């Protein structure tokens, strides 16, 4: 095999055109303009500009990466290709500006506003601005290409640094009423993140280094360090204030649901689209048992007294709804469970049960949880409740996964018939999956009810099931860290990016398609445990 990375003008052209089309698309649907009001770096860079910038960076990076020859290094060719791709992307946008100058595109494309053209031409007017945009495209491309000249480790550090700045900026502006980072802060964040990432990868490299291996104590310290940082972030997060805690509470509800659905879909391979049913059952049980509005059912319970009932109720119905679908697989199962989800929603909405559970008026005045002297009324305190719930659910999910039952689920997911012929009782195994999935969802629903202090039938739309499913698909089927990553990406991010509210489904769809094409295994795919060759503490007990 020789080095085949000869110059081929078609590749950067193709990549650049694609990038240009994407940039044009997000500009014309109005995303760029809508997020123009949100600064990333004060008076320098808005979120809208950052979006376009990211398109340029990805385009150039793709072009640079595709220039890799068999020798492995990108070389000067990568810089040229990346620059060309940047130029082509710019050219597409310049084309848009020029066409927009000749014909009035607004008749059809309502977002093709003068402000957009202004933004694209950097406020320099049509002629000079177009040239500036082209130059900027080439410049960005070349910068990305140069980054790709770096060896792997510093390149990663730069990527991490550059990637973290917009993330911090978005959080920052969400917290402080739309203020951006100052240029200095951004620079500090970039340097600090890149530096830390570099040091970390140095340490990590030493773990596998044969000549100078890191001592076992050192490795353990690394592990502990990582957990300590993560733990500190998780515990201290509510200090950021009310709004981020609120966002995190929603993320937590979906993490709980996702962990449960992950057992059903990810572990056992049973495609359940009616998962919202158990969320609703948990929420309604909480409402019925605690709200003073409900008079027909004896004394009012507190949150903690009602919680086990809510979870039990959901679990019970997980089994009851599981029985009729025992013989179904794949799409049939999906359709029937979809129906179950809707049935539950319609039942709670019905006039028939209105005297008991409020019909379309729902149940209100559900008390907030109280823990000793503290009322968990604020999003910040509720966050810890959810955190505890998620930790418990995550712990149980991990334990179940690494057990005989978890293996039976996985075997069933892989091949139901063969699993049965291996002596696995399908009825019991499936019902256990439905029941444990429903339990987590019921817990989530119960907390949801007391978080909002009310439940309404319309909260239990089929979209909740779909969202929970998306969370585990994006995160990585069967992976527990994946559920958390997925919930942050699909629930947390959209909350922070309120400007995109209109484009939420659009971004959702695009993200899902991208994931399926680029990373079908999810953000944090499930890792197989090493069993045979691991040094076991128990391995010697023969």
């Amino acid at each position: 095999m020789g080095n085949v990375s000869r110059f081929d003008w078609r590749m950067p052209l193709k990549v650049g055109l694609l990038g240009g089309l994407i940039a044009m698309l997000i500009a014309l649907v109005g995303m760029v303009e809508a997020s123009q009001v949100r600064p990333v770096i004060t008076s320098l860079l808005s979120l809208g500009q950052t979006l376009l910038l990211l398109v340029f960076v990805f385009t150039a990076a793709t072009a640079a990466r595709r220039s890799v020859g068999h020798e492995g290094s990108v070389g000067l060719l990568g810089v040229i290709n990346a620059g060309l791709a940047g130029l082509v992307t710019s050219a597409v946008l310049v084309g848009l500006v020029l066409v927009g100058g000749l014909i009035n595109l607004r008749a059809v494309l309502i977002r093709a506003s003068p402000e957009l053209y202004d933004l694209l031409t950097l406020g320099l007017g049509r002629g000079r601005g177009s040239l500036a945009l082209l130059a900027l495209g080439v410049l960005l491309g070349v910068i990305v290409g140069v980054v790709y000249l770096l060896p792997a480790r510093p390149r990663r550090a730069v990527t991490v640094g550059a990637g973290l700045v917009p993330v911090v900026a978005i959080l920052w502006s969400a917290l402080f009423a739309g203020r951006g980072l100052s240029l200095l802060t951004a620079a500090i964040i970039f340097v600090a993140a890149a530096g830390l990432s570099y040091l970390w990868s140095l340490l990590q490299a030493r773990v596998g280094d044969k000549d100078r291996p890191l001592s076992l104590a050192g490795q353990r310290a690394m592990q502990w360090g990582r957990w300590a940082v993560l733990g500190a972030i998780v515990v201290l997060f509510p200090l950021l204030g009310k709004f981020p805690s609120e966002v995190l509470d929603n993320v937590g509800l979906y993490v709980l649901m996702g962990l449960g659905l992950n057992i059903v879909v990810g572990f056992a391979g049973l495609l359940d689209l009616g998962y919202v049913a158990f969320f609703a059952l948990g929420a309604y049980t909480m409402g019925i048992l605690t709200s003073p509005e409900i008079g027909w059912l004896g004394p009012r319970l507190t949150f903690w007294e009602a919680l086990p009932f809510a979870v039990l109720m959901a679990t019970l119905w997980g089994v009851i709804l599981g029985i009729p679908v025992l013989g179904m697989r794949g799409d049939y199962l999906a359709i029937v469970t979809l129906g179950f989800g809707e049935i539950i929603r319609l039942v709670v909405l019905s006039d028939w049960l209105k005297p008991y559970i409020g019909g379309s008026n729902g149940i209100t005045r559900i008390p907030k949880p109280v823990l000793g002297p503290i009322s968990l009324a604020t999003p910040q305190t509720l966050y810890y409740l959810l955190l505890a719930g998620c930790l418990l659910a995550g712990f149980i999910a991990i334990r179940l996964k690494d057990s005989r039952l978890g293996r039976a689920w996985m075997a069933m997911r892989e091949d139901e018939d063969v699993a049965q012929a291996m002596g696995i009782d399908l009825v019991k195994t499936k019902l256990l999956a439905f029941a444990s999935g429903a339990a987590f969802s019921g817990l989530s629903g119960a907390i949801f009810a007391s978080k909002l202090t009310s439940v309404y039938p319309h909260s239990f739309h089929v979209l909740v099931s779909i969202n929970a499913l998306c969370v585990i698909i994006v995160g990585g089927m069967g992976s527990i860290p994946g559920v958390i990553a997925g919930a942050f990406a699909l629930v947390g991010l959209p909350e922070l990016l309120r400007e995109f509210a209109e484009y939420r489904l659009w971004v959702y769809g695009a993200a899902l398609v991208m994931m399926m094409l680029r990373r079908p295994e999810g953000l944090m795919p499930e890792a197989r445990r090493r069993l045979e060759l691991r040094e076991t503490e128990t391995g010697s007990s023969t």
Partner: protein
Amino acid sequence: MGILTAHKVTKRFGGLTAVHRFDVDIKERSIHSIIGPNGAGKTTFFNCIMGFYRPEEGEILFQGLPLNGRSPDQVTRLGIGRTYQNIRLFANMTVIENVLVGLHPRLRAGVVDAIFRTSRMRKEEAEALEEARRLLRFVGLAGKGDLLARNLPYGDQRRLEVARALASKPTLLLLDEPTAGMNPRETAEMMDFIRRLRDELGITILLIEHQMRVVMGISETVTVMDFGEKIAEGTPAEIQNNPTVIEAYLGRGSASEMLRSGN
């Protein structure tokens, strides 16, 4: 009466009779082959034994117990293991996990044990792991336990399937074309391996096989099926010289050459 007896078993799919009044008696600790052209009903008969299909008529007895009406997991628990014609491993699980799934019916741990990781469960898991490693060594897959099953080479996948079937401690093992797609060397190894299963573990082997070299080389008894019916039964030598078999199953002329070449 042998370990497995089928009596007038009939299985129909709509108008098609896949197995028709089929009788067979498998002697304990024997190697018994079922041969027959494609579509003769051999695999259907396997599926009737395992409980995947319910025969319309007749009965199958295993160690004196009727198998009719039992589900596959119950049949497995009674002590029958099987492998598949087209390998059906749990492809996205590791090699050792495949074997651990095979151990499933021999383990007890439930949900509570799993969540609290009770000492009983830890002990059971450690023993299961040890047993799985032992089985992998037995079939010659030691050191490959942490690979994904789908990444194994073909011959190893067949071995893994056997290891998985052995994990449930079967007394009767049904092998569906264990040498399909193997080269002569792998085939010879598989034959030795099947003999070892019987000689070292005392397992009765019932196999479906197309390669005459294998059938004639290792079986003590051969049953010939055609259109769902038994047309002949006997020792390999008897089958080779049985005119009914030669005419009805192998056809006339050139096919009989093939039959003799197995000797």
